């Protein structure tokens, strides 16, 4: 994004370089105007990840580091190569074991090392290439009380030019009028929202009345190469006009993203104002809200025609898939895949995105291994220890070995809750670990 402050460098994967890189993180944080606390957390995260990766990144290959200062966030990105032998150690629950490490903290798994960051994710690119990203958010003031405008003056219209003050007010209005779980995290500190819009991390449409007063808001952000996750519609007018405002917001959203490179839009926190006829329901996610177990529907729609795909399907999922595809009138070639009789290696590797702010952890599989069931269970246990309520697993049906993991997931306590058409390279099955009520 224009306006981002970026530092790129390559270092040998050695512990001696962790401190100078942390110094750069400090300089970036100061220059980007972050508070001292966030600055320290960012330095700490950068230094700890450097030390951690020095434990098993390929010694002949440099560690590529990108440090980015945005309005709302600092991000550290570590691109590295790791040989098969050390991949098991990349699981966030593992303990890195390397004679080269001196700091005792580096003996911990990523889940502990990464506690300084607000969230982190590990991604597998190709072959032996990995990227580890850690993010530290700017501190913003909590939501202040906001007065709801009165005396609406139709006609209502979508406004495409967004004023930061108006965005802040819209986020605060949404927080005051809707349950917390339906609002994106950035609404809790409304001044963060316009910064995220300016950074390109989130996008939105606002509906206004003839006087320019905000009457509604709908926001969205990409969550994969093919899918946009939306929140809303948030409507601030009385009930007699709320349906027309919601329709305006949804149409404005769809028109805005119609020619962007995404195939679907979906939400698991859509509000009751959503025009149901414009969307399809896929299933629901369990969530604890104020101590109560709730089911939140997953709604979606395509942006383009879906003329069919081929998906891999294990026997345990066939009935679930066929019923879902029939209900959704989706055309799919279902290709059978069996659980492998032998695993390619001993240690499996799971990718994890961990976001305590959203009370959410999400898992994907990078490498199959003999310990897959145990590895899943270890991740669940680690997340539960961190107090995470919702643990999801995403299965991409374009990859046969990934689809074949159904029995491991079932054994580890996961249940398929929805098909997300074109949510991955093809369709994705969303699994959720069973909540203990």
């Amino acid at each position, binding site marked *: 994004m224009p306006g981002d402050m970026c530092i790129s460098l390559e270092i040998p994967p050695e512990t001696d370089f962790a401190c100078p890189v942390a110094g750069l993180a400090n300089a970036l944080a100061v220059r980007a105007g972050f508070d001292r606390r966030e600055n320290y957390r960012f330095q700490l995260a950068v230094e700890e990840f450097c030390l951690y990766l020095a434990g098993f990144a390929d010694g002949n*290959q*440099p560690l*590529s580091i990108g440090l980015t200062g945005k309005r709302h966030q600092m991000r550290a990105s570590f*691109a590295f*190569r790791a040989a098969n032998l050390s991949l098991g150690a990349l699981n966030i629950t593992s303990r890195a074991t390397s004679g080269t490490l001196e700091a005792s903290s580096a003996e911990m798994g990523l889940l502990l090392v990464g506690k300084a960051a607000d969230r982190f994710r590990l991604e597998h*690119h*190709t072959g032996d*290439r990995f990227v580890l990203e850690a993010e530290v958010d700017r501190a913003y003031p909590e939501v202040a009380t906001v007065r709801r405008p009165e005396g609406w003056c139709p006609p209502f219209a979508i406004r495409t030019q967004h004023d930061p003050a108006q965005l802040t007010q819209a986020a605060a209005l949404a927080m005051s009028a809707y349950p917390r779980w339906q609002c994106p995290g950035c609404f809790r500190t409304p001044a963060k929202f316009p910064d995220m819009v300016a950074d390109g991390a989130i996008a939105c449409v606002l509906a206004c009345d003839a006087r320019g007063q905000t009457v509604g808001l709908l926001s969205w952000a990409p969550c994969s190469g093919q899918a946009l996750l939306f929140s809303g519609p948030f409507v601030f007018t009385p009930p007699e006009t709320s349906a027309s405002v919601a329709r305006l917001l*949804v*149409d404005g959203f*769809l*028109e805005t993203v*119609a*020619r*962007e*490179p*995404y195939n679907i839009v979906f939400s698991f926190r859509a509000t009751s104002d959503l025009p149901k*006829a*414009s*969307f*399809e329901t896929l299933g629901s996610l369990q969530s604890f809200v104020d101590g109560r177990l709730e089911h939140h529907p997953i709604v979606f*729609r*395509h*942006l*383009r*025609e*879906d*003329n*069919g795909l081929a998906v891999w399907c294990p026997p345990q999922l066939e009935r679930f898939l066929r019923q879902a595809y029939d209900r*959704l*009138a*989706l*055309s*799919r*070639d279902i290709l059978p895949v069996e659980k492998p009789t032998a695993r390619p290696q001993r240690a499996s590797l799971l990718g994890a995105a961990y976001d305590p702010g959203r009370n959410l952890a999400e898992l994907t599989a990078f490498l199959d291994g003999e310990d897959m069931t145990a590895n899943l269970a270890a991740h669940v246990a680690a997340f539960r220890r961190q107090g995470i309520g919702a643990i999801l697993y995403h299965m991409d049906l374009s990859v046969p070995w990934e689809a074949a993991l159904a029995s491991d997931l079932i054994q580890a306590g996961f249940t398929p809750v929805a098909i997300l058409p074109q949510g991955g390279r093809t369709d994705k099955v969303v699994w959720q670990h069973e909540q203990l009520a």
Partner: protein
Amino acid sequence: MNSLLDRVPDYVRSFERYVPSRPDPVLMRQFGVTKLFRLNNNENALGPPPLALEAIASFPPKQGAIYPSGDAYDLRQALAARFGKSPDQFLVGNGSCEVISSVIRAFCAPGDAIVTAEKTFAVYEWVAKFSGIEVRLVPLVDQAFSPAAMLAALTERTKIVFVCNPNNPTGSWWNRATLERFLAALDGRAVVVLDEAYREFLDDPDFPDGMEVMQRHDNVLVFRTFSKMYGLAGFRIGYLCGSLEAVDIIRRTHIAYSANILGQIAATAALADDVGHIAATRRMVSEARGFLRDLFDSLGLEHMGGAGNFIMVRTPLSDTLLYRRLMREGVMVRTMTGFRYPNWIRVSLAQEPAMTAFATALPKILETS
């Protein structure tokens, strides 16, 4: 550790890739139908004119080994004779999409812009975007191109204004006076492309003939195609007509030999024998339009579309879901979310069996939704 993506320009990386629909037999198998009515691409259900059919049938297969005329010589002669112009004022391409690319390459440099409507044929926007050219999109007013808004969107860097007349998908069009006022106000500040892909479906005397307009305005280029009225979509023959100077410039950015040999032959033959074909097609389209308007009115559905061989209708459910349900009934339509009309579909106007199939399937689906 650069990845392949790091080497790709941002404007390509962020671009939406187009996924064409699969071949009909595959779709029929996937959706479990034995017949599929194609009402999605505004093809002419009557097929090509008789002389074109004969020309195609008599094509010697061995001639497939021979390159076509690199600049569609015979076809340009025929077009020149038809419209009373020099053959050098015509440029023939592999469909009008290729001609759009050539025009943008010829007139636009990095930092330049094009102007068009936000709800129109997508290819102007696509080609400009993946060429790194700015696209300034203007809202329609009353479902039609707004001359005032188009003029207001102009900057010093605007090189081309695309006007789809009649507009796909709304079917609205500028009459002679509107176009003339627009061109006078524009005062030659940009090239104006009049895309007349559907003009042969109109016989209204107030519809402006681009071939005549360009004689008085040398910044006007006219696009036409053999894919719609002439029923030759499978052969991909589109063309533009402009001043000698303009076409000479565009020719420099245009790929020679791109129009295939059989397409050139079929298009040339089609031009020689189109009066009865055009009349029959207009009759079919008119009957189908009346039939579908009655259907939509009876179902209480909003619809639009005056010109062209298509009609749009707003549906009470997601257009992409309706598409899949209609496919299961053996009817393929075009979803309109991609045209920025969420929950609308566009239906090509065709012969009675196809219209009846659609009219049977739609109420059935709406009842169960």
